[in-house]
């Protein structure tokens, strides 16, 4: 390949934050018209590298070449001028502005400072038609779907004339169908002569669209490989640095009596509308019930209602046969609930406090940790030491603050605290979010173990793979309703994806069967 074919070359990029090296001598090059995946675990330094390329951060060392010229990207403006545009993981959109206002912001059409909205809207519509990115130029961001928000975000870069697009973890918030659509959009952008860097830790997406893949691990670039000739297993091993297993080992469940019975439950959201709408749900002892759904369909509110963190509007919740509707969190905890909260740093731990204190947060007022209102620090310390040992929490000592632990070890500390009390029901909300493959393996094993000990487990996750691998039954939530409960071994990703998008169970069945039929036909045709 000739030198001019490379639109981007990053040579020996190093970025230090204080003593910490987020990027350590990383090399990356991007050919014209290719989709180049950047693969790495959370915290491997992918985002740092791309923030350097898009002008948000300046590298400590290293050179960047764009279209064969050495450049100094000192600001997002410079990156724009060089034709580099970033589609951010957390959309950089102003909720209250329209699609057009968001797209033209910073590059407004104007006459003497007065904006020319109509002509800008026309431009947006034209761009939208040309690249097949359906948006409504006049709609407010807060009123449109996440998929359309992402298309607006892509249009923002195209409006600025970007030829090199960086997609930062673009699929995290999308349904499987929206992901499919995004993959097609990326292909058509490449066909139009754009070049794409795709940041991700999802291997199947890389296999599906990427031409080459650069793997980085702990801030260092490991290798750049041809995607077509590399297997998913090889990519995963490169990313983690050891051999990993994807499958969760588990025996079939032996469910018994229900531990959690929810009847006709309605929960209002802070702004007053119904977030959970008269749902029924049951978790039995000895099973894992998974809750699937796109973020924001009432899952968080459901869990907050069960755990007593938010008020139940109507309906009843029974835990281990006892009514816990609108009871205080402590009463519910004592009835037999363990809770691994969605946001571990806000609800799971008191970050500035010592690890040993954090591990006694649920029980500090009971004997032997407390006597006549005074804490027994010796017992609390002993307790923490036992948990650290048994759950393999990596920390220099139990006296270090919870904040000093890595994300995976913080999560292990919470899991240790919750499981050790041996609750009848364990709620795990997004238990592996942001964790590396090793920690994920461990946490899944622990959840299954809890199930095998005859306890109920309620697993809420936005990661479809996780829900499918760990659960025995799966409840799909859409717009505050449980629209279906299916057995994990009788469903597939496609069906769940349709359910997550609000398609009814019968229709989802039909559509899946139909597409299977078509596949068979085409296979028969080619034969």
């Amino acid at each position, binding site marked *: 390949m000739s030198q001019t074919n490379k639109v981007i070359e990053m040579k020996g990029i190093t970025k230090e934050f204080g003593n910490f090296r987020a990027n350590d001598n990383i090399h990356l090059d991007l050919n014209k018209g290719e989709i180049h995946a950047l693969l790495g675990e959370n915290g491997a330094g992918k985002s740092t590298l791309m923030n350097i390329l898009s002008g948000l951060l300046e590298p400590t060392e290293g050179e960047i070449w764009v279209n064969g010229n050495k450049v100094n990207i000192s600001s997002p403006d410079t990156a724009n001028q060089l034709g580099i545009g970033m589609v951010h993981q957390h959309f950089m959109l102003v909720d209250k502005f329209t699609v057009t*206002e968001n797209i033209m912001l910073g590059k407004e059409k104007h006459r003497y400072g007065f904006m020319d909205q109509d002509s800008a809207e026309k431009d947006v519509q034209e761009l939208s038609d040309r690249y097949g990115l359906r948006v409504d130029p006049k709609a407010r961001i807060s009123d449109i779907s996440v998929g359309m928000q992402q298309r607006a975000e892509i249009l923002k870069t195209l409006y600025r004339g970007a030829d090199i697009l960086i997609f930062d973890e673009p699929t995290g918030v999308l349904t499987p169908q929206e992901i499919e659509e995004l993959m097609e959009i990326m292909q058509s952008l490449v066909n139009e002569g754009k070049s794409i860097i795709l940041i991700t830790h999802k291997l199947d997406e890389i296999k599906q669209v990427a031409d080459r893949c650069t793997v980085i691990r702990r801030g260092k670039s490991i290798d750049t490989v041809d995607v077509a000739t590399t297997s998913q297993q090889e990519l995963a091993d490169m990313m983690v640095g050891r051999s990993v297993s994807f499958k969760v080992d588990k025996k079939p469940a032996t469910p018994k009596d229900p531990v959690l019975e929810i009847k006709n439950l309605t929960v209002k959201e802070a702004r007053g509308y119904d977030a959970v709408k008269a749902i029924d749900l049951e978790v039995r002892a000895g099973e894992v019930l998974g809750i699937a759904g796109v973020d924001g369909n009432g899952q968080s509110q459901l869990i907050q209602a069960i755990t007593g963190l938010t008020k139940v509007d109507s309906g009843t919740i029974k835990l281990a046969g006892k009514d816990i509707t609108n009871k205080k969190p402590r009463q519910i905890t004592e009835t037999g609930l363990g809770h691994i909260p969605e946001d571990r740093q806000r609800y799971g731990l008191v970050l500035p406090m010592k690890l040993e204190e954090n591990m006694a947060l649920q029980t500090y007022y009971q004997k032997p940790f407390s006597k006549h209102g005074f804490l027994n620090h010796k017992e609390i310390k002993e307790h923490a030491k036992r948990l650290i040992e048994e759950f393999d929490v990596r920390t220099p000592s139990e006296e270090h603050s919870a904040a000093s632990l890595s994300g995976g070890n913080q999560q292990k500390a919470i899991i240790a605290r919750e499981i050790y009390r041996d609750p009848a029901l364990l709620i795990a909300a997004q238990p592996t979010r942001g964790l590396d493959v090793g920690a994920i393996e461990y946490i899944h094993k622990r959840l299954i173990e809890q199930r095998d000990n005859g306890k109920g487990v309620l697993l809420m996750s936005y990661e479809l793979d996780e829900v499918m691998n760990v659960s025995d039954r799966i409840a799909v939530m859409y717009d505050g309703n449980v629209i279906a409960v299916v057995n994990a071994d009788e469903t597939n990703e496609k069906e769940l994806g349709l359910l997550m998008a609000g398609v009814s169970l019968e229709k989802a069945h039909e559509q899946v069967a139909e597409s299977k039929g078509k596949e068979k036909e085409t296979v028969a045709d080619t034969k």
Partner: protein
Amino acid sequence: MGFMQLMQLIVSSSLMYAAPLILTALGGTFSERGGVVNIGLEGIMVMGAFMSAIFNIQFFGTFGAMTPWIGLVAGGVIGLLFSVLHAVATINLRADHIVSGTVINLAAPALAVFLTRAIFGAAQTGPLPRAFGRSNIFLLHRIPVIGPIFFRNTSGPAYLGIIIAIIAWFILFKTRFGLRLRSVGEHPHAAETLGIKVYTMKYAGVLISGFLGGMGGAIQAQAIHNEFGILTVAGQGFIAMAAMIFGKWNPLGAMGAAIFFGFAQSLARIGNYIPIIQDIPNIWLQVLPYLLTILVLVGVIGRAEAPAAIGKTYIKSK
């Protein structure tokens, strides 16, 4: 008193009391649209009032009838200078907006009264030689019926405020500057990725608020109290903030709310002439504006949607 005269009295007094509130509420709107809470507007008004009073006394011989209008600009300039303190503290030094504003509110009256004592030997300046007084609005006052009620013998600064409110609405919602200022108050990170200079925009919002707040104070001194003393501003800055919230951070809404509060304040003075109200003890009419402020804030706050990134420190990544 006839109906027409009564209407004329109500409108002109409401506008007179509303004038300082309109300008200061508009100031608050610019600052908060850019994401900076400016409760220091109370203190900024004090400085504006003080400066305009000094100017009025010093220069009435030179400028004659134009004195209060130039004093208005002088008040705006000192307000702008004072707001630089708030901008540096909140934008560059990442101070809490409320704390910085409180510092300004504590420092400004102390400084102004100290200087007044140093210059005049008393806590008040004494009467200003050239106050705004009442004026007829050019041509409009000749319109039958409407003219006499709205435009005759009325408050000039109030109409200046109304014009500025309309201009402010255009600036915020129709110009490039307005779009950028609002984007910074809603989602500064998004603005930065699009090459907008977040700090510059925030500075612009705060400095505009300082200029308008200073003018508001100058009107308070030169049109309502006709002197400067510790009681000249007394809470007007906070009432203006309430008007801004009541008006949902929209310049025209803020203007409307300011006129409403102006009406409430004027009742203490003109209540005697209005049937029904004239039987209410005057003390209640004096309390009324503050009571209304509390009621409005209790009723509206929470429902009104403030700019999303308001009061939050923005730290540039580098």
